[in-house]
């Protein structure tokens, strides 16, 4: 059986689910961020798989490119927030204790 669109969609689904599992079970903010990166990667796999097998145009590549750039941006801002929280909340980055914006 030749590898086709559904194989890549399956990989995307598995990576997405593992990322979502990471997001909902981790209590460390950095761990949650790792899950988000996995989810964005699975979205890119799907974009490129549809671009390659289904449309044959270049549009999926551009969406994946913008997605990668936004992931980098999101990562930078989120890690800045994590470090600010770490400094201001007694060295704790536990998501369940972050109930206020200012301490």
């Amino acid at each position, binding site marked *: 059986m*030749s*590898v086709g669109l*559904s*194989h890549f*969609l*399956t*990989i995307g*689904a*598995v*990576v997405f*689910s*593992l*990322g*979502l*599992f990471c997001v*909902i*079970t*981790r*209590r*460390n903010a*950095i*761990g949650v*961020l*790792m*899950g988000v*990166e*996995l989810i964005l*990667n699975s979205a*890119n*796999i799907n974009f*490129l*798989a*549809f*671009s*390659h*097998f*289904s449309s*044959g145009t270049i549009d999926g*590549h*551009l969406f*994946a*490119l*913008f997605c*990668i*750039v*936004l*992931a*980098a*941006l999101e*990562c*930078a*801002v989120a*890690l*800045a*927030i994590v*470090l*600010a929280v*770490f400094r201001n909340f007694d*060295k704790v*980055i536990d998501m369940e204790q972050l109930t206020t914006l200012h301490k």
Partner: protein
Amino acid sequence: MSTVIYNVIFYILAFFVVISAAVVAFSKNIVRSAFAMVVTFLGVAGLFVLLSADFIAVTQLLIYVGGILVLILFAVMLSSRVKEIKISNLSVGYFPGGIIIALLTLLLIYIGVKTPWQKLDSVRFEPSTSAIGNSLLSNYLLPFEMISVLLLVGLIGAVVIARRKEDQE
């Protein structure tokens, strides 16, 4: 490209991606999770090559492996008490979360396999860089410019958030 070699490479890459993503999700040690992400991103870059997306694969290598991962590792190392697992990487709700996610995975795979997606008769393997460049300066000019402004805003925002407020302390 020979179909057999293509399939073998796909399954090897898929194996590495799924195993390392599972390590990212389930590992008790956050440093181990961060390093398992290296393997995940490299495997996903390989999958991009198999999808004839050469430029995106190189971008993935440069930005994800070279940039985002280093950033995450810096954050992991800067937030101390990494070794105390209870503090650094406590997880909650394994059991209910696991059931929901397993069902969701099966649903997504079912949708992906069963839906009659539109398919091309023959897939093409050709370099994509020049087509991406042409599109970025014609059809996608507006999002291209907007994303550059957004990057500037994000850069300034990250610096403002992360700097120490020395006048207050």
